[in-house]
């Protein structure tokens, strides 16, 4: 029995693979289809057992915990802000433990940070665009984060004479609320509200995206929400009345090793 089958109480353990093949109609002829499905089935009993990096011991190094974009001070600022947006609570870990800031750092370093698949041609009219028209600034997300981080720290310095990461949680929340309400000036090309919205959505993504992106450490975000991650099939539970709790697996389990 594979690890996957042990973890999947919803499957009839002895016949799961056979039933699956039958349901998916692989034996029927016709034009060649279901190539990916064939590959999935072929790998089923071997790849699902691997979950490298997830069952690592406490002393193992996570090589992903290094910076691609932020400097240390920027990292600390965002780490503190993200923790206020998604804090540790009785329900489970917060942004810090989930490594959300590493996720944001890595995203900013790539196409998301550079808005590379978005229309960034001039002219720009940030002043006349309401929020219903979204991104209307010439600034990319790297630049918006730079401005936002600077402003978080200057607000903290102005009000509390310290860095944002050093003030109390209540003080951090108060500053973030002012950002959300658009009460802080970044510059004429972008509002604090827009920066806050970006930071908030990136924080949620970092908590719940597949761990391959650097956040959602050990799938703890998914575990809190009872989300099973990457699974082959729910055909046998879709009609079930009771809630079926499934141990999550990530895309790492799908990839060849």
């Amino acid at each position: 029995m594979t690890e996957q089958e042990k973890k999947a109480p919803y499957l009839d353990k002895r016949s799961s693979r056979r039933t699956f093949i039958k349901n998916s109609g692989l034996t029927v002829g016709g034009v060649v289809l279901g190539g990916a499905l064939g590959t999935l089935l072929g790998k089923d009993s071997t790849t699902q057992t691997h979950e490298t990096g997830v069952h690592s011991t406490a002393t193992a190094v996570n090589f992903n915990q290094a910076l691609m974009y932020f400097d240390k001070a920027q990292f600390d600022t965002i780490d503190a802000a993200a923790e206020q947006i998604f804090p540790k609570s009785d329900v489970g870990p917060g942004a810090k433990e989930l490594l959300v800031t590493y996720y944001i750092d890595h995203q900013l370093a790539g196409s998301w940070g550079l808005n590379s698949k978005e229309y960034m041609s001039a002219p720009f009219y940030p002043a006349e665009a309401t929020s219903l028209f979204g991104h209307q600034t010439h600034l990319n997300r790297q630049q918006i984060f730079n401005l936002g981080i600077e402003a978080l720290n200057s607000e903290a310095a102005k009000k509390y004479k310290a860095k944002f990461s050093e003030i109390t949680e209540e003080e951090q929340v108060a500053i973030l609320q002012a950002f959300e309400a658009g009460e802080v000036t970044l510059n004429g090309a972008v509002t604090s509200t827009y920066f806050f919205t970006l930071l908030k959505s990136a924080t949620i993504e970092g908590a719940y995206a597949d761990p391959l992106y650097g956040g959602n450490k050990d799938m703890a975000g998914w575990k809190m929400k009872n989300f099973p991650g990457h699974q082959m099939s729910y055909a046998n539970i879709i009609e079930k009345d009771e809630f079926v709790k499934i141990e999550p697996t990530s895309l790492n389990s799908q990839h060849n090793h």
Partner: protein
Amino acid sequence: MAKKLPKTDIVLAGVGWTGGIIAAELTKKGYKVVGLERGKERKTEDYLMVHDELRYQQRNEMMQDLSKETLTVRHDRSKRALPYRQHGSFLIGDGVGGSGEHWNGLTYRFFPYDFEIYSKTVERYGKDKIPADMPLQDWGITYNELVPYFEKFEAMAGISGETNPHPEVPEVKYPTVPLKETPSMKMFKEASKNLGYHPYIAPAATLSESYTNPDGISRAACQYCGFCERFGCEYGAKASPVVTVLPVAKETGNFEVRTHCVVRKVLHTNGKATGVLYVDTRTGEEYIQEADVVVVSAYALNNIRILLNSQLGSPYNPESGTGVIGKNYAYQMTSAASTGFFKEKEFNLYAGTGSLAGVIDDFNGDNFDHTDMNFLHGGNIALGHYGKRPISNNSVPKGTPTWGKEFKDESIYWANRNLSVGSQGSVMPNKENYIDLDPTYKDQFGDPLLRMTFNYKENERNQQKYIRNITTKILEEMGADIINSPGDQGDWDTTKYQTTHNTGGVIMGADPKTSALNNYLQMWDCENVFVPGASAFPHNSGMNPTGTVGALAYRAAEGIEKYLKSGGSLV
């Protein structure tokens, strides 16, 4: 200087559902078809890593690269249009299969009322029922005439479903049994029945059982993996061009697809097209592909753009109401949804499939008396079980903060305890909702972008007020402990995803003065150009459009064959 390529019978600008259907039908008949596709090649194996919410849902992996081409948007003619810089309100797909790869698979037939909406409205309520600024039009074809084409599409895709029990809706027999019913769908069904409505399981292109279609194409049953809309299907269970019509066309040896090739314009002289001008974006080289028939088979919006940039057909003028290209742009409305929170029940919401839903049509089309209503048409009402994913599923009762500890704990507590009853509200045409070319912004080749002028009008806002009460009432009857009821429909929000059901702009009809196409989707002004797709819809109904798009594509395929045999205008 563009390089001229040897002439072919038919050239397609876009290889999605409509291009794929036309390719399959005509290559089977022995015609040579060249398909030009802006995006990349696609195959089922591409989706081995598809269960990735960030890449496919948040980052829109399967959608058009907007840095190369987008459109501009505004609410009315008095404003400057601003670029749609990021994907938001709708998602334009690209790549082989087009939006037919990332769709949900809900496959309805528009109602008999839809195709004769003007005549039937006047007949039942009189002319005065139609507002002066609503250019409501019959489609130039009736439901009964379209039935054989609906059947072709449903048989090809293997649609799973059951008959709609509403007495006003014609009976349909689907090739495969309905999808499985979840506990929440059963609750919806029971509550709707108690209220006197007519619930049924939505017709689905995600197969309920393995199926072999009339072309001999076999596909597997859906596994309810919960990654459907915005995603491709690794099982081939969701009908898409890549797993249905395209292999059939390729098998004939008469079909050639050229990927990474962007059609810039249709070339024409003296009212006849000679071919298309396109760019191979890998080499940067320009080509002219000559053809006897040009099929503009891109996404609805891109169809409009290709015609306007080709100076084919007369552009619509909102001032005078004359001209046709860009006229009757319509959309849909999703703001009547209510969300219910259930303390005692946890649902397996991570499971599902893109077209798994319980639906009622009691408040759709003209299935209810509009005599005392301050709007026309309506919308379907549905409880979908599409698979909820954790980044985007953060429903919390109204009044909960949107971030911080309380938000976190509440969003986690309710993650598997919330159900939405939504509606796809129809949008009627308005003379001020239209598409033309933007005067300022350009694409990667320097061609003008489209400019969309759109907002929800009185008819839609009134409809939303009426429908939202029903979605709330159904959740009450289902026993929800807390219900979030929606407020009024505001101005169109271009950033928030609503629906990718953009329609109109190259509409069909019986009169060349008020429509661009006849009922074979053949251009009145250019007899060897056919323009299938939702761009042909004179208005948008209250349900998913692909079933109707598919039927019209089969109709167009028949028209193209007729034209290649006998020439001339087919109507």
